[in-house]
């Protein structure tokens, strides 16, 4: 049972335009969401996160939107740059117990290609 789904395996966007990556989840207990970016032959790197008490979080060119009623989050990249070409994973976490581990559930990933 895939609790976190990224239904688009790939996305191609022209440089300078907006890239929108989508993620859906099924577990209403998730209270924290993250986006990771991964280049080939490297580990995933943290990009941006959002708590379930917010509906938007912005960091430079990256904005994450959360729609709790639809159990949907999206990552917007504006403007898109060639260096943004990578695989993007969304991840979700359930509330930690006191001093518990932050265990993440990941989506399958979306490969973003920015065309010059």
């Amino acid at each position, binding site marked *: 049972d895939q609790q976190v789904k*990224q239904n688009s395996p790939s996305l191609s966007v022209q440089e300078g335009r907006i890239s929108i990556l989508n993620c859906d989840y099924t577990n209403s207990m998730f209270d924290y969401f993250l986006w990771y970016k991964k280049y080939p032959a*490297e580990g995933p790197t*943290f990009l941006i*996160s959002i708590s379930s008490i917010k509906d938007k979080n912005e960091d430079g060119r990256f904005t994450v939107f959360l729609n709790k009623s639809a159990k949907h989050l999206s990552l917007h990249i504006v403007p898109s740059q060639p260096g943004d070409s990578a695989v993007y994973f969304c991840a979700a976490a359930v509330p930690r117990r006191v001093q518990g581990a*932050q265990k993440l559930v*990941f*989506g399958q990933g979306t490969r973003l290609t920015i065309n010059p």
Partner: protein
Amino acid sequence: DAGITQSPRYKITETGRQVTLMCHQTWSHSYMFWYRQDLGHGLRLIYYSAAADITDKGEVPDGYVVSRSKTENFPLTLESATRSQTSVYFCASSVGNTIYFGEGSWLTVV
């Protein structure tokens, strides 16, 4: 700042062999994790550890063993490798709500 280092980065082994993937972190984070990445599945949690000598199973623990005798090291052992364990393995550690990953170990079981 070395962060998390994994070794070996690339390994080919035969079915039935024992393989150990090493993970070392320099941040002194309490929590450490092992994930595997497979096409169509994203990253799935194998095992995690809250502190030295404390480990727990994740989503896909079968066929794997971990230990954590020191805070900075978290090795993952495949006791008898199978072809289904061909994957990319990522070690990670966390502080607060964010998990930080190593560069990965590519394992092929033939």
